[in-house]
């Protein structure tokens, strides 16, 4: 069995910051595992700016922010990086099983930091009736298709929800030559940052329907249109306000949910509503020596906050290792 003091699962901004911080706080034998073939996580697909104003005092793009940390990690020999490595099992005694090309690895570190981020909430979470045609994407998936794969998911887009990823993608679709026909938000105001409403929506004169909901998605093979109606203060449809918007693509941008299935598998207490660990202290779980940081601990608006949170987790893990010696 491989021997490491600390294993970190996830090589996005959280995992990288935790690794650097743990090292700087005295942990010299760290393994960082990442399922993708690059470090950086979701930052790599966030090609827009707005990252790093807090941490680096510079307005960076996602890939630039990721690169700063990737360079730091590469310069530290005490941090071993294992790419294309997918954690599949975690036990209460911190035995972690992961797959990497050609082998199944089992490791039992003295401490573990989970930096597994979030996944996107889907159409199923918000219960939109209708058919199940092609052309319905979560906003982050569309972002990956456009910014990493170079594929444009559609030409006429309706975005459900006004979360930041949806707003960012509204602009991205317009820049790539698609038409964003509407953003439909059930609340009376945007859920995204005010700056994104300005630079992603108002700049391109994209119509936003606040206090509206999508009643139904229509289409046989491909999305054809959505039915929309105004809602009252209790989110109920107001009779007579229904109208249709034709489109070939629907983006769902209704928030994120932390991924904590591995620690749940290990028996850690999880808040069923938020899917985050239940603990008395920030970054801790009910299993001593298992820490959670970044968006898998709490959904943050800004990567700078993820970095700060994860540096704390790295330090906590270092303190734990020092005390358990």
């Amino acid at each position, binding site marked *: 069995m491989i021997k490491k003091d600390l294993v970190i699962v996830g090589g996005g901004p959280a995992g990288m910051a935790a690794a650097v911080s743990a090292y700087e706080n005295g942990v010299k034998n760290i393994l960082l595992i990442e399922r993708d073939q690059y470090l950086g996580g979701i930052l*790599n697909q966030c*090609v*827009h*700016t*707005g990252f790093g*104003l807090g941490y680096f005092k510079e*307005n960076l*793009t*996602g*890939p*630039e922010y*990721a*690169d700063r940390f990737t360079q730091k990690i590469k310069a530290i020999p005490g941090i071993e990086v294992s790419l294309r490595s997918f954690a599949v099992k975690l036990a209460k005694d911190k035995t972690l099983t992961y797959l990497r090309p050609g082998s199944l690895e089992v490791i039992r570190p003295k401490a573990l930091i989970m930096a597994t981020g979030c996944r996107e909430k889907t159409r199923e979470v918000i219960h939109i009736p209708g058919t199940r045609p092609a052309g319905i994407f979560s906003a982050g998936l569309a972002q990956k298709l*456009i*910014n*990493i*794969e*170079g594929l444009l998911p559609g030409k006429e887009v309706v975005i459900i929800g006004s979360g930041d990823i949806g707003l960012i993608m509204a602009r991205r679709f317009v*820049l*790539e*030559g698609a038409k964003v026909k509407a953003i439909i938000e059930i609340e009376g105001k945007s859920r995204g*940052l*005010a*700056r994104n*409403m*300005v*630079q992603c929506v108002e*700049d391109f004169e994209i119509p936003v329907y606040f206090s509206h909901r999508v009643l139904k998605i229509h289409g046989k093979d491909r999305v054809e249109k959505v039915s929309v109606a105004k809602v009252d203060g209790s989110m109920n449809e107001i009779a007579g306000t229904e109208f249709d918007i034709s489109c070939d693509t629907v983006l769902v941008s209704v928030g994120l949910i932390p991924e904590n299935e591995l620690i749940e598998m290990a028996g850690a207490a999880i808040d069923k509503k938020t899917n985050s660990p239940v603990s008395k202290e920030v970054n801790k779980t009910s299993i001593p020596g298992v820490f959670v940081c970044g968006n898998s601990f709490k959904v943050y*608006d*800004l990567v700078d906050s993820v970095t700060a949170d994860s540096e704390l987790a790295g330090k906590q893990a270092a303190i734990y290792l020092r005390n358990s010696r």
Partner: protein
Amino acid sequence: MIKNMVCIECPKGCVLAVDIENDKVVKVQGAKCPKGAAYAVMETHDPMRVLTATVVSEGLELRLIPVRTNKPIPKKDILRAMEEIRKIKVNAPVKVGDIIIKDLLGLGVKLVATRSVAL
């Protein structure tokens, strides 16, 4: 005349009350930092934005190279700039900060890579 606008310089999104007289900004209120007043002046006279996008690569490890302008460009030129950016094909490895277009649309602004992409 007082015009309200949201400052987009940082995620705080300060709501600015901008007093404009004879097309000139005379007073800016509501900004939590000095960037707000400068933003209000720029936004009133010639709105500028940093443009980010991707360019196509050929024969490199990734299909796309993410790019940005090294300085803000006029908002009105964004879609025209995208037409230029779409024409680009890069076939040599790039490092973060490498210049992809020396002078975008003659605006005196560089388009630079934001990710290192190898062969």
